[in-house]
């Protein structure tokens, strides 16, 4: 990678940030975790984040609204939405509003890892080095 990518994780369930941080840091990304979407959005405005992983149903602001605000501020940013209440309607709305991917919880860490790798590639970044060392793939 030319420069370390920065990833923001937003979920009001603390376990999600705690579990995603090591997954993403092992890929070499700088990671910041937020439980409050309003604080996350304020931080997004002042920082440089290329990828956002956000829950949809949260207190204070839902993930679709966060997606719209992020995309308005940084159209190039990739937003990956996750939800424990999956539905085709919400998935369609998320994708129509520019979400990079939509994932239903519970999900395997590897599933998220692959989506974030694809997001990094679509940003024109090289795939993170740790994903290419498998003799099993």
């Amino acid at each position, binding site marked *: 990678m030319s420069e*370390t990518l920065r990833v923001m994780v937003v979920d009001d369930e603390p*376990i*999600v940030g705690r579990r995603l941080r090591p997954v993403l840091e092992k890929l*070499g990304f700088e990671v910041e975790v937020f439980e409050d979407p309003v604080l996350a959005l304020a931080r997004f405005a002042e920082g440089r984040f290329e990828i956002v992983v956000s829950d949809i149903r949260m207190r204070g602001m839902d993930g679709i609204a966060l997606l719209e605000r992020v995309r308005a501020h940084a159209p190039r940013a990739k937003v990956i939405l996750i939800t424990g209440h999956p539905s085709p309607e919400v998935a369609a709305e998320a994708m129509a509003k520019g979400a990079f991917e939509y994932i239903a919880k519970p999900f*395997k860490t590897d599933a998220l890892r692959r989506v974030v790798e694809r997001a990094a590639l679509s940003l024109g970044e090289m795939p993170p080095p*740790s994903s290419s*060392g498998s003799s*099993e793939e």
Partner: protein
Amino acid sequence: MSWLTRVFRRRASGEDITLLRLRTTRFRQLLGSYASLLALLEDAADKQGGGYILDRQYVIALVEQVAELADAVVFDLNVITSHRNLPFYEVADGLRAQLRAVLAQGSGGGSDTVSEVRTQTAVPLQTVSPSTLAAALARSEVLYRQSGHVACRGVAAGPVCNLSDGRQSGALPPGSVLVATDVEVEQAALAAGRAGAILLDLGSAAGTAARLARELRVPAILGLGDATSRLATGTEVTVDADENVVYRGRVNELLDYYRSGRPGGEDEEEYQLLRSVREAAFPLTVGAGRTEPALSDCRTVRDLVHLAHGLAGDALHELLSTERGGTGTLVRLGGPAWCEVRVVHLDGLHRSDPSGGIMPSEVRSRPLRAFLEGFSNHHGTSSAGHHGADHHAAKHGAGEQRMPGLAPCTLRAAATDEHALAVMTLSRGFDMLDATAGGGRESNTVYCRFAACGDGDPEAARGAVAAGVLMRLGFAVSVMAGQASGWLRGLPWAETEDRVRIVGYLFARLARPGTAGWERSAVEPDVEAFMRSCA
């Protein structure tokens, strides 16, 4: 017989067939709900391992799904038994409330422990930057990635101790990485306390090794397939069971990263909650010698659903064993007539003359045909000098004589082309099969139930033998009060059919234990002998 009597009997017979069709259909639904419950809880066990990211919502949804399935089982039981079990509804409601209370306690209780863990990990002792970590992982050789199932999260490194070399688990050097095909209960208990990590060729998230690994917090990846052949004793490996990856050598940066800032694994509140819900709904340890609970004894969803399914089976047995279940078409098995087999085809009569009987191969129902082929195979090769029953003789009834010294039994079946329900009445209880050949592999199902005891079998060895065989065949098995029940689904029809055939063979074998009778100490050899005879 007057014409009026004939008309009346025909009409009564039609009503009986309708009743039988409705009840067998309802019983299939009940078994489907029970099987879905088992699948749901196995899936929850898999998620308990930590390979998934889940939240409270998942646990809440699990509780509601479990309660819904229990309700469905209770509803079906009442339809089958003409609403003779209405108090089950009240108990189901109580258990739903109990599970919701577990959720409520989980949101408050235990939080001190969780916050303590978080506080402990909030101040890293040493930092490893993501770029340093990622570079170290990129340099490391990956031996396995996403190849098995995570049974317990965590990261550990050490030299491999491969038990397939003939080593005993008791001699495992502390901190080494245990590698084995699978481990028995005693081995797992010994090894898990000393091992730094566990890698197994076989095993499932709901198995013994997985449970022990979780209890002792030993990182474990199961179902790797070839770990014993690939990892020699002494090979240094790093197991990252958070990511389901195994690296060759010691990845110090990864170990330092986890030492410095890793949150508390299964101590996380959501995992504690999931564990509590699983234990409340479906306790992991149910002793084979436990007595069948009465409704007032039902403390868990497992107790309730199991009791309900047992009573529903009893009602179906009663219906099929009486005239209301229809007399059906005689099936000629060949050889001596130690068991009378009759089939009611719910979609109409068989093409052959029902009064003359039909051969198993002429049975229209696919699952019943497979079952009877297995059943009659034993018949044709059984003891007492009746080996190799002649097809022609069987077809025409030659040799159909009662064998002296054997208690006669009856086998009754109700079937459609794609479904079969069969019950075999014995001197002490009954055995039951319910099998469906569905449109796809997910709808291919087999359920069977075996009476606990045979004659002269005070230790319920008969049920234990049945359970042992069913486990070897890949069934999910439940043993309560010595009675064995097994479920199987999701296999292609050819494989399902093979198992139905073997179950038919098992019915016949267990109905006639031979002169030696039943002995608890002989269960394992009996299971081995049976499996050998199937080969």
